[in-house]
């Protein structure tokens, strides 16, 4: 097991490095620098600034400096468009908000999706099953950027129950719609995967044996069926995590939650390369670490996996 973890880590580290170098080269190829503005700075000041951030060095040294700053000090350098702010300040402002509603949405999607899928499989071909299948088919075409306006239309404009945007840490009213808009389509996918794998497991030989032994259905489901049925769901969690982070960009935009996605879009519109780079790298690292955790969990749960 330890071998497997070390091997996976060995693979994750170069991936992260490639991501950073790739992003850096992209940034370098783009026209303009962090200190180019319409009114030219005095050359001494420019030279000082460039020396501070290492921009006077040759390219390969710059990459090394950027890598060193990012990896050792977690420092993404200055923002290109806000002269007085660093990328780190912007990240530390937006990231906690995204993390808060993102993790709630993730847990919500997994819990409700799995329960819906399991219930649909247990009560196969019942009204509940048809309802679950209907929801999963419908939610395929309701991605977050469609759900968000529809939710606002219903709950803010027609019913007036929930605020249409903004963010307060203490007030759950502001969290409901971002979470639901973000989670719906993933909940549906998870429910679909759970349902089909649960149906398959319930027809497997070992479940028939437990039935023949006369074990109660409840015990069979909880102790024998659920674990193998959840394996496909587990492998879907990695992609879900990535898509949720991506989806949070829309949520931040549409609900003005002030999260990381808002900064990303603003940075994109202002050509603030270093902020975009910082967010891309942060998201990439999170993605890689998350898929590492999922892989390890998978190897731990599934005895068929050899490492």
């Amino acid at each position, binding site marked *: 097991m330890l071998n497997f973890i070390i091997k996976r880590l060995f693979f994750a580290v*170069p991936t992260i490095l490639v991501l950073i170098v790739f992003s850096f080269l992209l940034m370098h190829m783009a026209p303009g620098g962090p200190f180019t503005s319409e009114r030219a700075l005095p050359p001494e000041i420019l030279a000082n600034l460039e020396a501070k951030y290492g921009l006077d060095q040759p390219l390969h040294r710059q990459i090394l400096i950027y890598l060193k700053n990012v990896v050792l000090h977690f420092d993404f350098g200055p923002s290109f468009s806000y002269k007085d702010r660093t990328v780190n300040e912007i990240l530390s402002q937006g990231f906690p908000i995204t993390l808060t509603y993102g993790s709630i949405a993730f847990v919500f999607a997994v819990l409700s999706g799995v329960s819906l899928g399991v219930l649909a499989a247990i009560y196969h071909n019942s009204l509940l099953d048809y309802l679950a299948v209907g929801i999963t088919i419908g939610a*395929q075409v309701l991605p977050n950027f469609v759900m968000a306006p529809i939710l606002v239309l219903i709950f803010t404009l027609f019913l007036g129950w929930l605020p249409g945007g903004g963010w307060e840490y203490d007030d759950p009213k502001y969290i409901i719609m971002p979470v639901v808009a973000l989670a719906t389509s993933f909940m549906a996918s998870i429910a679909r995967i759970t349902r089909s794998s649960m149906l398959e497991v319930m027809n497997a030989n070992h479940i028939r044996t437990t039935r023949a032994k006369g074990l109660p259905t409840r015990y069979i489901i909880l102790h024998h069926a659920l674990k193998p049925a959840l394996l496909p769901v587990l492998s879907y969690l990695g992609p879900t995590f990535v898509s949720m982070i991506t989806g949070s960009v829309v949520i931040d935009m549409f609900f003005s939650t002030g999260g990381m996605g808002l900064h990303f879009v603003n940075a994109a519109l202002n050509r603030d*390369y270093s902020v975009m780079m910082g967010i891309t790298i942060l998201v990439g690292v999170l993605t890689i670490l998350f898929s590492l955790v999922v892989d390890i969990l998978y190897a731990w749960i599934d005895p068929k996996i050899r490492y």
Partner: protein
Amino acid sequence: MPGLTPKYGTKYMLIRKNSLQSLADTMSEPEIRGRSLWADARKRFIHNKAAVAGLAVLILVSVFASFGGWLAQYPNDEIDFMVIGQVAELGGPSFANGHYFGTDDLGRDLFARVVQGTQISLMVGIVGAAIAVVAGTLYGAIAGYVGGQVDNVMMRIVDMLMAIPYMFVIILLLVMFGRSISMLFVGIGLLSWLDMSRIVRGQTLSLKNKEFIEAAQATGVSSINIILRHILPNLLGVVAVYATLLVPLMILTESFISFLGLGVQEPNTSWGALISEGAGTMQYGTLWQLAFPLFFFVITLFSFFFIGDGLRDALDPKDR
């Protein structure tokens, strides 16, 4: 074929009559003819009502995208000064003033804009999926067929690229190299082939130990020709299914980026941009601006998903 046995006998006329008769008999007994894999699949597909309905809707949407422009009373970028300023009261859908779908908040004809958005969204979906099909199939087939260390390296590269949050990278590319449809194609195409290559590689691995590949190798066919002539035709079914499911994903990706205002630029538009505009103005009581693009978006995605499911049921040997 029964009845054809006494051919080229002595009495030519009589035999020709006989063979004509037998030909007619054969034609009227279709169950004797062998059914190809594709004929079987077609039959199964036609029996799937949802898939056929999806196909019909998709054809209607394509007709709308191709010929809807002729029906429009206004070009998509012309501002109607009669309704501007009173869009909520005067800009609604009506046949009287020629704005079948109403106008947007700037007084532009929504019908013409939805036609144009449909064209662009469908084009992005199909071109993106086509890039994925060509690049992913070739990459996966080569990796799977060659195998060994080459396969290992090629698939590690795919694994690495998969770990990149690609939506962010596409937006990064768009911002750095200018927002244009062609850049959007490059960005989407660059990263859409990864899943396809994995699926194709898996299929190729199971194909390459079959007898007919061995026979081809034994007769000295070159590796490239084996891949092109023997492996690829056998992959067509799987590739067709995943390509159909890829198109809606590409449309979703493009709509997502355009919804953020980073994709297709004015005066061009796409479903994502139109939905974004409609969502931005819905509190002024102009709901049609959200409803029409959303309607086309939803029915098209539904059709593609249903067609994809139907194709999978028709072609996937696992479920037979």
